[in-house]
């Protein structure tokens, strides 16, 4: 706990001290809030419990996030972000050792993150927050999965049976730590608004140890793990320079 306090204090002091230095921002505006809409492309790999699965594919996940950004040096800024993703994912029947058909899950991710960025100096000589930038960010993501329906043979399990099935499968949650590299370009419109396009490349690390004998919960965990690994995310953001 002391270490975490020390860590937070260090970050606070670094930012504050840098702010006392020369930090022009854009026409003196150092703080801006940005809303981003993006498409997250997840690399959906076979899980450890199903190494025979050869159906690797990409998963498209719409993402929305809001970030608060603070320019703390001439070419540097820090961003705190909070975001949400929701998508559905299909679990192959191969998982279902009990002979059950494939399931479709509704998965939602809620994440918070902190990112550190630097605008390019050599090629595009730009001062934060405009111009090309690159940086990295840490994310803490809470991911939850709820099975919503059968992915196959819709006519086999209808009505009461389906309802009963959903009752058996509870909402499952997992926490992930993400690390992402980010690059993009931001410009300013009318001296007040920001327009951003960005590309993130990240990886989620599972922080949970789960040990459940309930196969349905295990399936959900497995599915969440499979959906939170490598990803590539394209964002378009629009924001406002506040002060």
């Amino acid at each position: 706990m002391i270490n975490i306090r020390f860590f937070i204090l260090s970050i606070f002091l670094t930012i504050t001290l840098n702010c006392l230095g020369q930090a022009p921002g854009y026409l003196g505006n150092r703080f801006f809030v940005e809303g981003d809409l993006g498409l997250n492309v997840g690399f959906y790999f076979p899980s450890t419990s199903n190494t025979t699965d050869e159906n690797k594919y990409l998963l498209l996940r719409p993402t929305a996030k809001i970030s608060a950004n603070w320019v703390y040096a001439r070419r540097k800024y820090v961003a705190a972000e909070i975001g949400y993703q929701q998508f559905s994912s299909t679990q192959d029947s191969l998982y279902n050792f009990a002979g059950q058909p494939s399931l479709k899950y509704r998965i939602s991710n809620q994440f918070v993150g902190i990112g550190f960025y630097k605008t390019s100096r050599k090629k595009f000589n730009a001062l934060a927050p405009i111009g090309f930038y690159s940086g990295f960010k840490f994310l803490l993501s809470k991911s939850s999965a709820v099975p919503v329906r059968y992915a196959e043979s819709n006519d086999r399990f209808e009505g009461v049976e389906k309802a009963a099935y959903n009752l058996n499968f509870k909402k499952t949650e997992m926490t992930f730590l993400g690390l992402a590299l980010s690059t993009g370009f931001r410009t300013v419109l009318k001296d007040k608004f920001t327009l951003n396009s960005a590309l993130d490349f990240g990886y989620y690390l599972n922080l949970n140890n789960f040990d459940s004998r309930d196969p349905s919960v295990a399936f959900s965990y497995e599915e969440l793990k499979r959906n939170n690994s490598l990803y590539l995310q394209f964002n378009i953001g629009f924001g406002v320079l506040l002060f």
Partner: protein
Amino acid sequence: MKRFSSILLFISICFILNGQNLKYDRIINQGQLPEDYTTPSEEKYIQSLETSSKDQDNFKNKNTRKEFYLGSTYAIDDLLRSGYILFNDPISKYVNAVMDIIVNSNPKLKSKNPRVYVLRSTAVNAFATDQGIIFISIGLLSQLEDEAQLALILSHELVHIQENHNLQDFIEAARVDQSINKRGRMNTSQIDIANLEKNRYSRDQELEADDKGLDYFLNTDYSFESIERVFDILRYSYLPYDEIAFEKNILEKLSIKIPDDYLLEKVKDINPAEEDEEQSTHPALSKRTRNLSGRLKGLNSTNKKDYIISKENFLDVQLKSRAELARLFLDRQCLSDAIYAGFLMNKIYGDSEFSREVIGKALYGYAKFKNNDLLENIYNPSYKDIEGESQQVFHIMKKLKKEELTILAIAYNYDRYIEDSKDETVRSLISDLFADLYLHKNINSLTGFYTIKSEVDSSEVKIEDKELSKIDKIKQNRPKAEDDGPWQRFAFSEVLQDSTFRNIANEGFELGKELKKEEDYFDTSTYKGRSNLRKYRKRLEKKGRSLGIGKVLIINPLFIQLKGNMSNPSPGLIESDKRRKALKEILESSANLHDVDIKILDANSLEKNDTEVLNDIVIASEWISTQLDAENFLYKSYNQKEIEEISERYNTPYLMSVVVVSVRQSNPIARLFNRKRKSLIFVSIFDVKTGRKSFIKSDLTSNYLNDVFLKSELYDAFSQLSKQN
């Protein structure tokens, strides 16, 4: 009565030629700004198009016409506002008066409303533009021998205006290019053929101008006896306006004596290059002379005069032109030429404060650039390429070693300081040179200078007389250091004990010590220096500079918008104009955000009463230009005194120069993928008093500098400017 007039003329010429009284002030523009300055370029361009559209016959191609008027209007306006032009001054008034005489004798010329501006250029040249403007250079005026010769040149240029030669030339060039282009992409030989064809057309126009110009001239009362020599003047125009054997004693002040072997035994013969008519836009001068002589044969020159206005007036203009030429040599950093020009002024008009000033400043400048190994930044051709008597100066300047030249410059300027007005600016030049001795030759006191040469000589004799010890023999046989010949060490014999001299020297050594300390701090040959430099650069990158400046004078903010192909960009004239206006607004708003008080002096937005502002811009631009040549060392420009006056008037010692160049490709796909550099932003601050300069922004980047980037960059520049340390 006639006798009385002759005496009066003699007295007035003597007065003009009385060098001791010659205290030449810089020629400045006077009165109200002419309309050519105050009308916006875009407006002129539209007017030209409207006027020309009435005369459609001349234009087969609408685009060619547009291109011509766009290019010529903006080019002429740029020239007018560059500060290289004089108006309403005594020289311009006189030249315009001569032109009026020609125009009055040829009334049809009035239709084009011709006017003459004097071009502040050392080149020997005159040219006319489609707008009815004739430009005649100071270089040419300084070489002309009488008023009639001036009239002939103006007559020639008036033909170019009357016959629309510029426009026709442009159309012909476009036609030639077009006809060759039809056969496909031009290769080198085709380009050569095209150039030859264009040159031929241009030569024909020149011959026409010679011919018709002579008609205009003959309609006046000017005598044609001297006009054949005009072509000789042009032939030898690369030489100074006079050929007088250079005497090195003009440089030898105090006790200094330049060794005789620093002079060439014989200067290079004058031998103008053979004229290759084919490659030139002008006909061979020999041909032009023959044509002129042919036309003049048999003509009677009775009642014709060399001077219609007056000889005194011409001589006065000639003197002013020659003095201005000397200043121009200083401005263009042609320092050897400036020394010879000062020498000529001395010989022709007598020793004067002005000629001494020119030589003193040129010696100072040459010494500074030599000491800092930056001679490539000034005009410094090999003496072997120079013909005529001025070659001696180039040779001496080449032979003088750093220490010798610095001491020579000190001696010369100290003599000026004592003889003339004890000017503080001269004093600062001397102490600056002493600082250079400290910095570059490690001379940190006057103890290394001998008081009386004979004492040293006698001591040397004594050594020979007595039995020599081992140490004496070693010392005597030791070869003299090539770089530090002893002769210059006797330079200050007579003033070494003067308190004024010693004080100036000590000021210089102190300054040198201070500068040395700064130099050592970043000395990259030591670990500590490298580390300091690293830290400094890191700090700059992170926090920028902290200059703590509250008021600044911005001189001619410049925005050049280039467009088209990256490898061959062309200036977007109208776009540049618009973006320059935007740049001014951004500068004002950025300065406001930081509470920096700015005053922008912009030659492109002058009102008719802004003549003084234009004069200030000219001085400041010239000063900044020489400061930029000096790169990283402290340098007192030749117009230091004038810039200090301006800085006092505007109540700030800080000048700012802002230059933005941006290339935007016409092709949007190429724009996306091209990796070549696309823009440059250059913001520099100059402290007029100390000569310190700071390059806040000197970035060559790949991003297209739209207004957003520009605002960000300039906001940052003002942030660094205003931030207190």
